């Protein structure tokens, strides 16, 4: 069970109030977690990663365990604490505004 925390706008879009959970088969990576997330919430397709290329959208960041994982390979294993469900995988909207 992988815990995922979404930014406010995406929680609204997916009609969820809080942290969500997804099941991942095999290696727990950014790609496998986001694939599972989009399979469960199809409305999020294109809102975190670009359609087709599956590149992270420019203003979206990925954090976990107090680390910025945004520029890690999408196929790199996520921290063990995320894989074990002890810590959430955080999808963050980059800070903008005044």
């Amino acid at each position, binding site marked *: 069970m992988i815990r995922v925390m979404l*930014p*406010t*706008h*995406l929680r*609204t*879009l*997916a*009609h*969820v109030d809080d942290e969500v959970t997804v099941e991942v088969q095999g290696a727990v990576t950014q790609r496998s977690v986001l694939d599972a997330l989009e399979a*469960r*919430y*199809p*409305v999020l*397709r*294109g*809102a*975190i990663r*670009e*359609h*087709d290329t599956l590149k992270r*959208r420019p*203003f*979206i960041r990925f954090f976990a365990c107090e680390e910025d994982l945004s520029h890690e390979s999408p196929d790199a294993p996520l921290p063990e604490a995320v894989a074990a469900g002890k810590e959430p995988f955080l999808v963050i*909207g*980059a800070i*903008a505004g005044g």
Partner: protein
Amino acid sequence: MSGVRVLVGTHKGAFVLSSDGKREKWDVSGPHFSGWEVFHMKGSPADPNRIYVSQSSSWSGQVIQRSSDGGKTWEAPGGGVTMSPQGFPMGESNKFVYDTSEETGKPLTTHQFYDGTQKPWVFKRVWHLEPSLTDPDTVYAGVEDAAIFRTTDGGHSWQELPGLRGHGTGPQWQPGAGGMCLHTIILDPSDPGRIYIAISAAGAFRTDDGGKTWKPINRGLKSQYIPDPNAEVGHCVHHIAMNPKRPGVLFMQKHWDVMRTDDAGDNWHEVSGNLPTDFGFTIDVHAHEPETIYVVPIKSDAEHFVHEGKLRVYRSRTGGNEWEALTNGLPQSNCYLNVLRDAMAVDSLDKCGVYFGTSGGQVYASADAGDTWAPIVRDLPPVLSVEVQTLP
């Protein structure tokens, strides 16, 4: 009793304003899609309860949602009202992919950037949604970077009509200050194959075969900010309006200049006349009087606020050239608002109602064709678009 429903898109959500035919008392619902930019929302002429909305954000991109109950509830198209076993919306409505197929999309390569270099097309957002006049599930979408898409399944999937970008002048199109957007789509009720569109900054185009082939319709436009002021394309057209009862006559608010054509865009001539400034964004036509048109002059392309600190709608009852200022009920001092291109609309009640929204979050209504005005709401987020549905 008949009524109206005013659909307002703002920088931070959508609002639905409803009234009976008197248009004196209003119910306000919203914000819908709170926190998202809503560039446009529009109802289907074939089914007034079907409303489409374009919501977008710099963070999370484009989403299309729709309502089938007049704006009470919304869904991301694709799964109808069906939810997943966990109770989540199933829709996937945000996929706009340019046609790059060998057959039709291969020649569609680059457009001009601000600095004159060539850039590839990159999808940014949907600026305008134009539902079909006859089918609630068919909608046209004008997008940035400029292209036109169509859905025939109620917004679930979208396909580009590539003949527009492919007709040959694409490399000369360039973005205006707001981006290279296709912001205006007008369907001709007398000819199902005829569609008009406008792009900042490329100009106006027309198809007569349902979107397969397009031609520029900019003869008569003059723009000093392009190397050849009379060029076939490159003009920053801000908006076009048409009275559906007289489809061949169009009115245009260009970057500068208010223009008119009487031959479906083949030739344009200027009708700015006695306007205090002919820069502006929005323009519309009275529902019952095809020669009565409305604009909101803006001071200049460098100063995007109304002229002389006065919010004035200008009305011409002669199809242009002779204009009168409409000020009754509008602020006439210390006012520095803007009114954007898609932020004015008219209803079709017996006494035509006129509506517009401002950068200050006001939505003004006139139930007497512009003679008097009153705010429906005063303190919304900055208004991006206003559309009106006249209900039976």
